């Protein structure tokens, strides 16, 4: 499952599959949408190395 950003104020859910023109509409007010460009997170984040 990729990254999902819910813009609750607008009632909008943006995913990595959302067309760029829609993302561009909101990206000025919600800079966290830039995270969608950082690639998908397919699995659980790795745990820190144990000593």
């Amino acid at each position, binding site marked *: 499952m990729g990254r999902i*950003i819910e813009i609750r*104020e607008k009632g909008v859910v943006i995913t990595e599959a959302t067309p760029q023109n829609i993302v561009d509409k909101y990206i000025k007010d919600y800079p966290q949408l830039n995270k969608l460009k950082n690639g998908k997170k397919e699995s659980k984040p790795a745990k820190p190395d144990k000593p």
Partner: protein
Amino acid sequence: MAFCALITQGATYDCDNPIVPGVNTRLILINKDEIATVTRASGYVEDITLAATKTAFAFEGYRQSLNPEYRLVPAALSIGYDHQIKFQVFDISQEQKANLEKMALGRMVAVVENMNNEGNDDNVFEVYGLDVGMEITEMTRIARDLETQGSFSILLKTPDEEGKEPKMPVTWFDTDYATTKVLVDALLP
């Protein structure tokens, strides 16, 4: 059977980093309506931002004054989860009474910090009430009560009159404990 009804892993017991019961007694409450964005990835919450000028609020406690719980609520054709937070407010000022009267009318989201231990970075912060929100269902203050020191005893809970939370409290995690804590603390004034 729906694909989402099939489990995909077992569970092990981590002998080096066993689960630790308990929570940090600082409770962070957010007005649900003031959440601007929620970023989710791989089932985790990565970040929560609030509307401009809005903040979350910390309620400090001590010893066992904060008690979060959640449980499955099965029904014939659906399942859901009840989230609840029992906590004390050790402030009986008129300003706090007015604040709690507002809380009684609103709907809350809570961030709770589980006891942290090495190797447990991604299981520390949990967000209660993120989708439905929680309402006050009990609030009492017994002035002579020695156990509560006459503080307010408050129960926030998923409302019975509406749909239940669709998921357990979501774990808030980004990169590591320190990074996540910065994001959580950024909600506060």
